[in-house]
């Protein structure tokens, strides 16, 4: 199954036979006090830096989250989307838990966006899916409802429900990307084995594309980027087709591109070799 997202001049295809889709996570105020203060003051100037750094790191798409409880998120989203689209032609992932902010972002977006996200809760499905359908966007479905089930089968049940309800709203399964929920390995020793089992079930029973917050796994641990890189290689080899991740970290992006090469999604290592040359050229200047 292939998920297609677009800007006016670029198409990104997410799928099991495609190179892994790196979605840059940096435009998000969580854990960024300075950015929070800027958003509260209506200042979006940081986005230019965030966009440039993430693209330089190799992002295929960018997530845009400007949610701060002391800021006007709806207005900010409506302004941030055209601003980012003026800076780059990579497709965007519009990220908010506020319905009106998603609506504002989608209305401002040129092309086919990805919406982040909906859960399996009825109230969220009924609020978000009609907007996604109306704008012809794709959507990320989180495999949790009121709680996060620790059994892979139950996460897959929630995923099936999301795909089914999306279908009722006219959103085809290829436009639903399921997030099986990557959780911190430091707090739950089975977190990644459960994640991998869920990926297998999703691939075999639904065939949908998948994504996750790749940084979650290494929360609260030393050597986060090395762990993140290893996690991505493991997840990718078990069927993960995209991730929302810190694309400014070479360890993580290199792990993804190496795995693409190893799994036959970068024939003759064309991309891998190009990355090497670009790095050499950058080091030389």
């Amino acid at each position: 199954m292939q998920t297609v997202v677009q800007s006016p001049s670029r198409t990104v295809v997410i799928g099991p036979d495609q190179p892994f889709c790196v979605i840059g996570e940096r435009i998000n105020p969580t854990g960024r006090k300075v950015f929070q203060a800027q958003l509260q003051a209506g200042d979006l100037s940081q986005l230019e830096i965030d966009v440039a750094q993430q693209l330089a790191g190799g992002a295929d798409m960018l997530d845009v989250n400007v949610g701060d409880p002391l800021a006007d998120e709806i207005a900010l989203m409506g302004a941030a989307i055209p601003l980012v689209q003026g800076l780059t032609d990579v497709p965007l992932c519009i990220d908010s838990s506020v319905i009106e902010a998603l609506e504002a972002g989608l209305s401002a977006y040129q092309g086919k966006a990805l919406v982040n996200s909906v859960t399996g809760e009825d109230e969220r499905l009924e609020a978000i899916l009609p907007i996604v359908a109306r704008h012809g966007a794709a959507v990320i479905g989180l495999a949790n409802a009121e709680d996060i089930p620790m059994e892979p089968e139950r996460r897959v049940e929630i995923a099936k429900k999301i795909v089914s309800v999306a279908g009722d709203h006219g959103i085809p399964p290829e436009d639903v990307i399921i997030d099986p929920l990557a959780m911190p390995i430091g707090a739950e020793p089975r977190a990644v084995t459960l994640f991998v089992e869920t990926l297998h079930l999703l691939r075999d029973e639904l065939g949908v594309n998948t994504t996750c917050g790749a940084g979650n796994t290494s929360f609260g641990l030393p050597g986060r980027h090395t762990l993140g890189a290893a996690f991505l290689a493991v997840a990718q080899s078990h069927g993960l087709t995209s991730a929302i991740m810190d694309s400014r970290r070479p360890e993580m992006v290199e792990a993804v591109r190496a795995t693409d090469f190893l799994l036959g999604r970068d024939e003759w290592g064309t991309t891998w070799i190009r990355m090497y040359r670009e790095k050499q050229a950058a080091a030389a200047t």
Partner: protein
Amino acid sequence: MTHEEILKGLYDNTLIGNAPEVKDLTNAGLAEGLEPESMLYDALIPSLEEVGARFERGDFFVPEMLIAARAMQGALDILRPLLAETGAQQVGTYVMGTVKGDVHDIGKNLVNIMLEGAGFTVHDLGVNVAPEKFIDAINEHKPDIVGFSAFLTTTMPMFKANINALEKAGIRDDVIVMVGGAPVTQEYADRVGADGYAADASTAVRLAKELIARRRSAVPA
């Protein structure tokens, strides 16, 4: 083993999260006639406080904190009934939960552990807790404090929604409201009308004790 050896063993093994050893030493302590209070206040709590201090300095990581807490829980399971028997002081009752829309629980769980270690009775409602559930739990447990946790900037507005719900239910003044979580600031806590905010787990415990003491002294006997 001398009492000192047992207490030192409890301290050292809690620190490294060796749950089986902590359990054995707790039973050994009881067999040797050590007071439950002594094991709690002279070994277990100081050890967990050291774990918390190392964690805040960045010398300890999440798994180390969690296994230390688990080791202490094992000892508490044995000691709790005995402490109740001897009438060890009840510090306070705490109802805790991650707000609706948010499923992050590591920070909340760490605070719970530190609170229990300090002698609080904690009723943890889990994650994605709707305002009505907080209200039901407050009515059921009559806590001194209710704690709202949020990890996302986008779920922090639930603090205000919860506080509004408490007001509507007529129970806002019956409980102290504390808030916390990675993106939360003192300014935000003040703005939503919370009674307390702490940036980390051990500060949260200190503040919880302080707020309870303040309230108890303010209430005419």
